């Protein structure tokens, strides 16, 4: 058996070497797990540098530039420093849960990587319910905030946790409804199935509304500006992680950075075709490259928004979600479902053997795209109308107030 076979089918190789099949199987799984779980760990060290440098350049600063070339080793220096810092558990904190929270936080983010298809062949586990797994694991992140906020025995932490839970719960609704659309189009929940469904045409062009909703909801889920209420420094100091110090605090931060990247990664997989690209099926390793490029689109966009947009108020965040995003995503699901049935009835979908052909995909893409554009136009029209009515009411209110003030001044003058 050549060495290449050993790499592709490790357990068979072990069995040939004399191990029992069960143990060989377990070892090969464990090896795969460690391999997949190490990718995010290595990535996050680099990500923190990217994020700090990018935000700095956007805001006309230099960013880290002292440790190593371009400040690349800054994160490692920071990590070493945090390792040596005293760790404080405040009096009255629930010790066990208090220490558990950062661990939950990081584990929840790493777990998402289990279903990310890196290339045509390399995926942790191609579950038949990959999308559902992603949703389930992503919501573990909500638990960590409640746990951290509650166990810290600090009022700011608790208030921050309440706020964040309300925010995360709310934005999970449009997030999941947006994920429903690619499932409708692909007819499968497996991540590889969804990527393969996009070999002909990316879902971004078939379902732009869903892609945008997914992106915006993820900004909120990862606690990024303009939805970074969970760490409103001026109001609740730092929110749920106020009492944490040393490496536990570092883990909270690292998992936040990593979550933002993972969200962009999944957006790229679900809407921009993941590893697909020229020659990606013949040379699988190219898939890594394509996936990285596509992820960068979403990731850098979220960084740009983070470093430029101010924070919105908590009532505005809630109103935006429940009165705009949720109705929009419900309408979007219905419109997409309706158009898919129309496409099916008219026979516009490509034949199964031509599904990867771009030209064959054009008719159904055109129909879905037009439907999405109509949804966007309608939503914008409704919003503009609502905002205009609100502004007019506000102006009238102000005028009245000015009027009254003038009256009272006149009365005082007499």
């Amino acid at each position, binding site marked *: 058996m050549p060495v290449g076979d050993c790499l592709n089918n490790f357990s068979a190789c072990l069995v040939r070497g004399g191990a029992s099949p069960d143990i060989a*199987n*377990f070892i090969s*799984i*464990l090896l795969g*797990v460690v391999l*997949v*779980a190490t990718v995010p*760990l290595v990535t996050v060290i680099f990500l923190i540098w990217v994020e700090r440098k990018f935000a700095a350049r956007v805001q006309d600063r230099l960013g880290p530039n002292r440790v190593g070339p371009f400040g690349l080793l800054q994160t490692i220096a920071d990590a070493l420093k945090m*390792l*040596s*810092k*005293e*760790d*404080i558990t405040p*009096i*009255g904190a629930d010790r066990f849960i208090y*220490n558990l929270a950062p*661990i939950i936080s990081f*584990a929840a983010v*790493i*777990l998402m990587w*289990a279903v990310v298809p890196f290339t045509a062949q390399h995926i942790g*586990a*191609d*579950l*038949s319910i990959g999308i*559902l797994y992603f949703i389930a694991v992503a919501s573990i992140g909500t638990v960590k905030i409640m746990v951290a906020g*509650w166990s810290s*025995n*600090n*009022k*700011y932490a*608790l208030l921050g946790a*309440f706020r964040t839970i*309300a925010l995360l*719960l*709310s934005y*999970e609704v449009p997030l*999941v409804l947006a994920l*429903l659309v690619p*499932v409708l189009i692909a*007819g*499968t*929940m497996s991540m590889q199935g969804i990527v393969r469904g996009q070999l002909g045409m990316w879902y971004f062009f078939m379902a732009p509304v869903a892609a945008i909703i997914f992106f915006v909801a993820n900004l909120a889920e990862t606690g990024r500006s303009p939805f970074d209420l969970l760490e409103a420094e001026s109001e609740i*100091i730092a929110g749920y992680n106020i009492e944490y110090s*040393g*490496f536990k605090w*570092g*883990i909270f931060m690292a998992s936040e950075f990593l979550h933002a990247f993972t969200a962009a990664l999944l957006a790229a997989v679900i809407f921009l075709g993941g590893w697909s690209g020229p020659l990606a099926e013949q040379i699988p390793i190219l898939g890594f490259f394509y996936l990285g490029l596509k992820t960068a689109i979403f990731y850098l966009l979220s960084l740009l928004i983070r470093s430029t947009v101010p924070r919105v108020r*908590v*009532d505005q965040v809630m*109103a935006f979600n*429940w*009165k705009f995003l949720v*109705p929009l995503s419900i309408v979007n*699901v219905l419109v997409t*479902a309706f158009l*898919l049935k129309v496409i*099916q*009835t008219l026979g516009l979908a490509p034949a199964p053997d031509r599904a990867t052909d771009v030209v064959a995909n054009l008719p159904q893409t055109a129909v879905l795209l037009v439907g999405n554009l109509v949804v966007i136009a309608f939503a914008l029209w409704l919003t503009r109308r609502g905002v205009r009515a609100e502004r007019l009411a506000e102006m009238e209110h102000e005028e009245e107030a000015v009027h009254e003030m003038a009256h009272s001044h006149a009365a005082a003058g007499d």
Partner: protein
Amino acid sequence: MAVLNEWAFIGVFFAVAWVFPILPIVGAWLIRPRKPNRVKLATYECGVETVGDTWVQFKVQYYIYGLVFLVFDVEMILLFPWALAYKQLDFFAFAAGLLFIFLLADALVYAWRKNALEWF
């Protein structure tokens, strides 16, 4: 076997994912200094001593948002099988989905009209 392997992978992943964050915490625990005192361990509250119970009553609004979320969360779980089988079903599937989503959009409209979505 292949399917079982996928779930075995997830199982092992769950175990390993916990180990990764525990390792640096244990590492820090081994080398970090320990010099606690009363002031250092006090609950942080902008320099003043904290007053009263920490676990205060919370705004009822959070509870209402929680309820509305629950409605939609259950709805979405029931919608995924529908979406999965959608392409194999005939036009009636659309009508069924429409009806189901309308029942729940109704709940949103009700909450909206009852001012449950306002932040007071």
